[in-house]
């Protein structure tokens, strides 16, 4: 099942700035909504997004309930060397999703 999707170039020149767009499928339940009978629906959100480049963290975002459902996180990173970009989403109730994307840098 498509839990997360990453869109980025597969190759780049050294020093080029890579544009990365990520989407994660998640309701991002705020913890402020109520059921039809008035009970509070508990918070259940993605808490943290981390991008590592050949093991080195290059971008990290801490998310709060104000981030919309099915969160988009778009950012940039410099194409330094060939290898693998790893994307991690961690959240409430044991939510953990990983995606990887290769990058060829010349």
């Amino acid at each position: 099942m498509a839990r997360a999707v990453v869109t980025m170039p597969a190759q780049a020149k050294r020093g080029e700035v890579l544009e990365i767009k990520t989407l994660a499928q998640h309701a991002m339940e705020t913890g402020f909504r109520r059921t039809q009978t008035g009970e509070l629906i508990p918070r259940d959100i993605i808490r943290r997004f981390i991008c590592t480049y050949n093991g080195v963290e290059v971008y990290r975002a801490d998310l709060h309930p104000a981030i919309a459902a099915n969160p988009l996180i778009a950012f940039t990173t410099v194409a330094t060397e060939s290898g693998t970009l790893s994307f991690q989403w961690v959240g409430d109730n044991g939510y953990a999703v990983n995606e990887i994307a290769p990058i060829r840098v010349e």
Partner: protein
Amino acid sequence: MTTRREFLVLAGAASFAAATEARAQLDPNLAAKRKAAFEEALRRIVGDAQVRRGRVKLQLPPLIDNGNSVPLSVSVESPMTGADHVKAIHVLTEKNPLPDVVSVALGPRAGRASLATRVRLADTQTVTAIAQMSDGSLWSDSAEVVVTLSACLEEGLI
């Protein structure tokens, strides 16, 4: 097939739940409480340091289609070198139930200091973005957004 009775019960329950939230919204101190929470969040991030306007560009549509999902983008002018870069970007609101929206940790590897995402906005309000630089300086930008309620909502709140 929902019977008329079931429909009325659902509608009643929905309006009760909506009334509960509406009552919360009618709290005469609500605006003040949320503004105070925003100020406290701001203080937590910047401490006593001075925050200057500039270098940060926060973009939001002035009139949005739906407060559930508002496209937001932040970019900060910076060479993003080892000596001079953006360390963190924070986005805050003053009228949401919680002031924090997102905090980004980054560095020279990012190439550009930027974030694009989509946020939830509870009401017409001002959104603020703060950038923390490697030299300790703080810069900010804010944007005002008008949020209106949808015309055709679903029957329940789930």
